[in-house]
């Protein structure tokens, strides 16, 4: 049969005659090429005092719930290693310690890059947080299921108690080893609060529950770019990152390397982002993908 070169010609055949001329088949990775050269990234070892202050501020901001704030300004998504500096809309609360020390991602130099391409103006909304915690003691699941109203336990089906609370609206899987998984929260703080409530329930049921090694394991966000996307085109130009199998699933699975996030991109323009350990990864991943998606927008 034909060589792989014909893949392009056949797809051109299908895309030809489309309403808008020239859907770029082999558009460059950054269709809105700004000439921005990737910033050299400084390691945290050589931070000056000023940078250290800025870093701490950013950590506190990352720990804060500030979903109401608008687009992350400053650095664009073109250089994935950049840590987005969020505009300060509220002063950091006195006495709050950063609960989730940001990972030691390499920081940019102080002078922010001039944003040659504007940021998307769209902020992904967090939809689900999965966290784990160790209650630090063995648990008798039968007792828990008997004494708690909000517990479900079918040992034949699954070896854990399924417990739910109303506020924050979440579900927990509680194992006899004392380990617990908490799902359904809409923010890191809510996940932590919910996990603490489950731990308190277990305590009140008579177990010496502690709250050890609380960790956010996964964060899921979603948003809408508000225009339809030619997934067949995207899989052609970004083959090494994309998997588009309409026989299996209507969306395109995009595995971004930096940050390590999986995006589900749909023809409607809706995007789901998952695999993040901190919310900055979700925002960063979206800012990276947005110019790529815009490149597939029809230009009549």
């Amino acid at each position, binding site marked *: 049969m034909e060589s792989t070169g014909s893949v392009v010609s056949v797809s051109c055949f299908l895309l030809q005659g489309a309403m808008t001329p020239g859907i770029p088949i082999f558009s460059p990775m950054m269709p809105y090429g700004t000439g921005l050269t990737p910033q050299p990234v400084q390691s945290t070892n050589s931070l000056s005092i000023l940078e250290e202050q800025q870093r701490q501020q950013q950590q506190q901001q990352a720990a804060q719930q500030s979903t109401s704030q608008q687009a992350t300004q400053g650095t664009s998504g073109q250089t994935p290693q950049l840590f987005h500096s969020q505009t300060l809309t509220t002063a950091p609360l006195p006495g709050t310690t950063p609960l989730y020390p940001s990972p030691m991602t390499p920081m940019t130099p102080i002078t922010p890059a001039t944003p040659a391409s504007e940021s998307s103006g769209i902020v992904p*909304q967090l939809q689900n947080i999965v966290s784990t915690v160790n209650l630090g003691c063995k648990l008798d699941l039968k007792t828990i299921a*008997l004494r708690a109203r*909000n517990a479900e336990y079918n040992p034949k089906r699954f070896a854990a108690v399924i417990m739910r609370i109303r506020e924050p609206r979440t579900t927990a899987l509680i194992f006899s080893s004392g380990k617990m998984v908490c799902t359904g929260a809409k923010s890191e703080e809510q996940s932590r609060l919910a996990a603490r*409530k489950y731990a308190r*329930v277990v305590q*009140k049921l008579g177990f010496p529950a502690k709250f050890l090694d609380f960790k956010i394991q996964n964060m899921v966000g979603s948003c809408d770019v508000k225009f*339809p996307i030619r997934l067949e085109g995207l899989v052609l130009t970004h083959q090494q990152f994309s998997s588009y199998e309409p026989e299996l699933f209507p*969306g395109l699975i995009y595995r971004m390397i930096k940050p390590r996030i999986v995006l589900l991109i749909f023809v409607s323009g809706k995007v789901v982002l998952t695999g993040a350990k901190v919310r900055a990864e979700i925002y960063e991943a979206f800012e990276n993908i947005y110019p790529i998606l815009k490149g597939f927008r029809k230009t009549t």
Partner: protein
Amino acid sequence: SLRDTVPRGDCETVCPNTPCFSEVAYSQSTGQKEQLSRCLQRGIRRVQDLCKVLQLPTVFEETAVSYVQRALQHPSFHLVSLEKKELLGGCCVFVTCRQHNWPLTMGTICSLLYAKQELFASVYLSLQKELELSVPALSLADLVKTHLNSFRLFQHAADIPAPFVENKEKVVARTMQIVELASETWLVTGRHPVPIVTAAAFLSWQSLQPATRLACTLARFCKLARVDLPPPAHLRLKELLEILLRMASQLAWLRVFNLDKKTVVKHIGDLLQHRIFLLKSAFCPEDEEEQQCAAAPGEASPGSAAGAVQGGGCPSAGKRRPLLPPCLVNPRKRLRTAAPSASDSAVTGEEPISDGEIEQYLRGPEEIRAFRKAQACAAAPSTLPTPCLATCCI
């Protein structure tokens, strides 16, 4: 030696009648496969069988076998269930076909392997991820050709009415054009490919001799052609007809006919011929709101807005809708979770938790007793006297 002169694999035993010798395959007796693990052997065997059945070029077999070897050496595949390992050979053949633009669908390979599609899908996705394979999207144009090969309407047969038999090349050519039209109008992205081809083939066949074929339904067409009718094909057909009707509304000499979804089929040839122009006139760019859509060039019909009909009738000449995927044209009403409120945002995770809040989730002692009784009743209803059931079971 025997090894050099005898073709491998085909040599059976030497003395079938002598009791002291037993039948042994050449490959076994020579230990040809000794070094390969059993999984790998089975995987290679599966690849060879599939390549034979599908009549694939030799180079496909070599590539697929190399993928099987790489996969089984990969740590993430060591611990995969045997059930999944069974499918590995098929997955590698599937990937190879796609990389060579050979239009093999997942449905086909799953039926050849007697595999559940979900299981095949998970093995395929793992394979793609772990070996970092880039797999080009299925080429619809090639799929049209191979899928139509299995249709039975291109030769006369006893159970097919004579007017239903059609020239294969004509059907293939027109189906390709209709599939291309579907692709341009967002009917293909994110959807199963085969139902689109089936619907397009039906329309193309109908339109080549509408007089005798308009009365034939999609279901009957598939039955006569001896192909499966995939459930989404009806929806794809409906969507295609809507597009065609809108296009027809832009052709001056067709507007007088007041076409509907049956009669528009007669004019598919014309519509396809002028499709570029018609698409431009019938649809406005996707970012324009429907209200802002200008009337079609040269046609001023301000009063015709009332004439626009949902399906069935011909849409009014002046009104254009944006060219969007169906999911955006008819958005399903979905409960959108509200954006987090200010109070949600203020949560720190370290708030104090009141006893009262936790106690609402705990059963009181009487409740526990009642629950225990109910559990016992449910577990062994026959051993307890009936009055007990009345008191303890709520």
